[in-house]
């Protein structure tokens, strides 16, 4: 097996993930390279989920009985784990949502209904980038349409990075919010947070960061980022589906209005009007995803037991290896940075004029799972003049041998359609 400096003890880690032993298509070993879409779940998370339902299941914050209190303690305990994981100054800054899309929609709706000085209206501007996932485009388009605000975009350079050359024209005194992705799900690019945050702070704009592809793969420190909001999802970081996080600065969460109304988010309700619970509960209407939050807490324990810095080093080593090997494949064009520098472990590419659907189908036949399509980032495909890409993405359990399998698989694709 190929040895690279920085690799984790993958053999031990893979034992924690039962699904990785699966065979597909009559005995092909599964090579799971679709981690940017969702990660697999370790036994520790699966056990936490079933243990929750077998022993503690109750609604939270509502009962005085034992189960209700234990379930509440577990749910709120998960919030503590998330807060520590992202170095939040306060646990009350951690809002549970169902996914990153909901987190980003929540921010857009808070600002749409807010009073001054946060209010987004026809006189103001919203800034996003051309490499955003649709979940960080459409909520802002909706907000812009509803308020008359102007939506502005950072463009991309030919090598897959943000073009910040006109940053002073893009982010202006009119800008209310700048929302951008920390690590691109399609290009793999790691964006220069500091330069953008500095300019946003100069003009008094809020900053929202989509950390969906960062939280699973590297240490995340919301205080170091200096953003106002950070969104991510649980299922890409070994947690279950149905649980996402929005972190927001406390004074903003106090000032900004709620979006969804219902149980749990209130203080008192009369027929005339209601008052609201303090954050984070103000933003968590209805019965929350309790088991999923507990599962996310277990996922965080799991990732911490390995170490986020070690996971980052492992993926960086794999990415360097993958970029090198993929660059050797004839007719293969990486869409995004072609080196491992400032780059995450999601690598998109085209293969001659073979459509990514066909690439993915032939790879699947060999047990290799990749994502094909526009990856919910269609503006990127338009920018680079391609209909779609094939994307391989790695995680803490990925191996150099799986990258070799991908490269061999691509050779087979070329022969099949050649």
């Amino acid at each position, binding site marked *: 097996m190929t040895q690279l400096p920085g690799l984790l003890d993958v053999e031990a880690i893979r034992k924690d993930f039962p699904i990785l032993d699966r065979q597909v298509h009559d005995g092909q070993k599964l090579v799971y390279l679709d981690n940017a879409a969702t990660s697999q779940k370790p036994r520790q998370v699966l056990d936490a989920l079933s243990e929750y339902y077998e022993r503690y299941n109750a609604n939270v914050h509502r009962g005085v009985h034992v189960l209700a209190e234990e379930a509440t303690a577990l749910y709120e305990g998960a919030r503590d784990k998330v807060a520590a994981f992202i170095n939040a100054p306060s646990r009350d800054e951690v809002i549970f949502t169902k996914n990153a899309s909901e987190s980003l929609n929540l921010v857009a709706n808070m600002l749409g209904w807010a009073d001054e000085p946060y209010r987004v209206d026809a006189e103001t501007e919203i800034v996003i980038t051309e490499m955003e996932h649709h979940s960080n485009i459409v909520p802002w388009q909706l907000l812009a349409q509803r308020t008359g605000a102007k939506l502005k975009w950072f463009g991309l350079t030919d090598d897959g990075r943000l073009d910040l050359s006109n940053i002073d024209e893009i982010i202006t005194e009119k800008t209310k919010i700048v929302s951008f992705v920390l690590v691109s799900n399609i290009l793999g690019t790691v964006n220069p947070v500091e330069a953008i945050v500095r300019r946003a702070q100069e003009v008094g704009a809020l900053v929202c960061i989509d950390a969906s592809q960062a939280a699973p793969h590297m240490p995340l420190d919301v205080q170091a980022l200096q953003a106002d909001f950070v969104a991510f999802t649980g299922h890409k970081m070994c947690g279950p589906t149905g649980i996402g996080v929005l972190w927001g600065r406390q004074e903003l969460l106090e000032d900004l209005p709620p979006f969804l109304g219902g149980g749990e988010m209130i203080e008192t309700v009369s027929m005339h009007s209601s008052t609201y619970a303090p954050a984070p509960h103000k933003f968590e209407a209805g019965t929350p995803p309790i088991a999923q939050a507990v599962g996310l807490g277990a996922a965080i324990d799991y990732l911490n037991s390995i170490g986020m810095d070690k996971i980052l080093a492992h993926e960086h080593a794999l990415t360097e290896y993958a970029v090198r090997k993929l660059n050797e494949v004839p007719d293969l064009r990486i869409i995004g940075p072609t080196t491992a520098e400032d780059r995450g472990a999601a690598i998109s590419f085209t293969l001659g004029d073979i459509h990514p*659907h066909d690439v993915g189908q032939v790879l699947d036949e060999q047990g290799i799972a990749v994502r094909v*399509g526009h990856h919910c980032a269609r503006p990127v*495909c338009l920018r680079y003049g391609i209909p779609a890409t094939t994307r391989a993405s790695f995680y803490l359990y990925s191996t150099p041998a799986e990258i070799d399998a991908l490269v061999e698989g691509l050779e087979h694709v070329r022969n099949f359609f050649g």
Partner: protein
Amino acid sequence: MKLDSMYQEVILDHYKHPHGRGLRDGDAEVHHVNPTCGDEITLRVKYDGTTVEDVSYEGQGCSISQASASVLNELLVGKDLSDAQQIQETFLELMQSKGRIEPDDAMEEVLEDAVAFAGVSKYPARVKCALLSWMAWKDATAQALGGADAERKTA
């Protein structure tokens, strides 16, 4: 190998040497997309009375979607509308069969080259690729010949 059941030689032939590709004069034009994968087609139909005089198209997509458009052109151009509709409905039935229909002689007579897509029906993610141009044709035809029940996007 199972892949060969999807990528029949006939399909790959149509993919590499498409029939009737390119946009020409038409009575109606539609643009359909498959949002899950980004396949797109712009398709025009031209009628001479109830005869399909031309189906022209331009698009981008995988081998299955491109070959399917080529087969459609080959099969439907020159046919009377009612025959063309029967072919379209038979093709739809085959594609929605989840691999359970083994085309018989009667079906083969109606569908000709299009029976090669039987294997694709086993792959749920690819059925929409095969149907993209056919749904576009149905939509364009409805628009060209009255349009009252014109259907919108397939996906």
